């Protein structure tokens, strides 16, 4: 098949609004939020039995645009286009694929940059703190709206993996399976530390103005710094050495000045600036905080991971990458080992890769095979061993 035949083609972002006053969505913090709008996309057809829906849950900077393009002249397809489409591992000829922007995001779903109906202004920091569980509760509303009672699978990497895990803990009767990639039951202190530095870069920026920066164009340089830091954590030392080494943009002597001279510098600067065009600094604060708070054992097992995971009924696939130091393989292995002790249906695969945490977004034949074959064998709710 040529590449165009494996492409989902032109797709459309749709909106769904619920919790209109007097209704509201009760958040994990106890705060109430409403109305809530969800931006989502769907590809493929929902079967007559409504049993072929695969929910994709995105990571920190992702959005609902997971595959295809919005217009024929769009240069960039969705963020996981290599995984989703006709004949691809998440095959849109077989599966009805749903992906929505997370609660607290800035790509169409209600978040801190949305208008607060009470004030007519963007919420900014008046937006309530949301959690991974709140994001999942919103996704549950969306799939109910789409007429889906059971999901064939929930698939996500990084923070998406946290959501997939939360799905099978909070709604164990809904997904038949989950694919949790490069993720964890709770962030390490090191990962929380990086989030904290990223948030500090934003809040310490003079133009941040306590989150009320929207009238000024909303480009917070601190967000670019946070993104630069993030990118370091997504790569591995070996990957960075292979790709950048000490390469400089110009040959010859050092310039003896502070312009971006090393290629790694200009790469990070470019990634930082590009991020300003598409991301909201307040969303970055909220989403990283949600990741920091996520603690499956704490929430569902009184501190015991095994007790928490006993809630799970879904078949599970955990994938990690050997060079990922932000979400180290040991964290996925720990999840798999706990499920094994519980006698649950669990598969764990650690893929050899030098691309670090980012591997899940890059072409990776082993990951593609694992996801495609796993989904193809999901039948019932899972026979435990």
């Amino acid at each position: 098949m040529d590449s165009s035949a494996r492409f989902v083609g032109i797709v459309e972002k749709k909106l769904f609004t619920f919790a209109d006053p007097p209704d509201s969505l009760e958040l994990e913090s106890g705060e109430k939020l409403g109305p809530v709008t969800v931006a989502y996309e769907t590809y493929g057809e929902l079967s007559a039995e409504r049993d072929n829906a695969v929910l994709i849950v995105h990571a920190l900077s992702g959005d609902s645009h997971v595959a295809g393009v919005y217009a024929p002249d769009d240069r960039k397809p969705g963020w996981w286009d290599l995984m989703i489409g006709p004949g691809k591992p998440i095959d849109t000829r077989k599966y009805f694929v749903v992906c929505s922007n997370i609660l607290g995001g800035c790509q169409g779903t209600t978040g801190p940059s949305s208008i607060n109906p009470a004030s007519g202004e963007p919420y900014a920091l008046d937006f309530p703190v949301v959690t991974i569980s709140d994001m999942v509760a919103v996704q549950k509303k969306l799939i109910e709206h789409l007429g889906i009672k059971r999901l064939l699978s929930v698939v996500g990497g990084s923070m998406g993996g946290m959501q997939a895990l939360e799905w099978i803990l909070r709604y164990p009767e809904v997904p038949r399976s989950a694919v949790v990639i490069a993720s964890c039951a709770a962030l390490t202190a090191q990962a929380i530390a990086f989030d904290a530095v990223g948030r500090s870069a934003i809040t310490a920026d003079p133009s941040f103005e306590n989150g009320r920066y929207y009238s000024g164009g909303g480009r917070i340089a601190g967000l670019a710094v946070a993104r630069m830091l993030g990118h370091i954590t997504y790569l591995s030392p070996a990957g960075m050495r292979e790709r950048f080494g000490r390469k400089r943009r110009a040959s010859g002597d050092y310039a003896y000045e502070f312009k971006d001279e090393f290629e790694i510098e200009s790469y990070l600067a470019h990634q930082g600036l590009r991020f300003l065009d598409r991301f909201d600094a307040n969303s970055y604060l909220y989403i990283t905080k949600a990741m920091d708070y996520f603690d499956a054992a704490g929430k569902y097992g009184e501190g015991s991971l095994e007790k928490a995971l006993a809630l799970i009924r879904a078949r599970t696939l955990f994938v990690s990458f050997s060079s990922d130091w932000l979400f180290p393989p040991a964290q996925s292995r720990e999840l798999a080992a706990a499920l094994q002790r519980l006698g649950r249906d669990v598969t764990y695969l650690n893929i050899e890769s030098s691309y670090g945490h980012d591997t899940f977004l890059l072409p990776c034949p082993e990951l593609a095979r694992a996801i495609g074959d796993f989904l193809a064998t999901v039948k019932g709710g899972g026979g435990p061993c």
Partner: protein
Amino acid sequence: MLRELDRRTIDTAIAALIEPGATVFDIGCGDGSLLALLAATKGARTLGLDIKSEAILQCLAKGIPAIHGDLDQALASCRDGMYDYVVLSQTLQVLKAPHTVLKEIVRIGKKAIVSFPNFGHSSVRWSFLWRGRMPKSKVLPFEWYDSPNIHHLTLRDFEYFCAVHGIEIIVRGFFGRRLAYRSRMAFPNLFAKEGLFVIRKK
């Protein structure tokens, strides 16, 4: 390691030893074909373990759950007696610390099933004695330098190990000429190419 047909013969013999509905943990599960056979014919509830990612991918394609990882780590986190059977088929001789693994599998399995090529077989002894060369055969098809088999043992070595380490041998099985399975054999340490044992902690 073994030819497809030979491995199937051994898998079939193992499957015959396992009760329907048993929980089975296959260590060094490879492509998951034994577990797939057990799931299909015995309704066994199965899990595989392998150190190679390709093995895990092949298990995934068969719908067989499997854990990718190091044996020591994977076994240490298992509870006592959590499986009806732990299978260690054609794997013992490639392990770095077979003694540790044998003690672990009788801890986590109510029973364990072990199969391995018999280094005491007459052809091996013949090759060694008369040709003075490291033996090669159907079940030991490697040169000395590329053999993954780093801990050769005979059936008698295995019996001795079990006796010393408080492991009871419940079933003995032998694969003789053409790898036909036999539950009895005269002078098995001389004439069995492969041994198959069901063991448990005393």
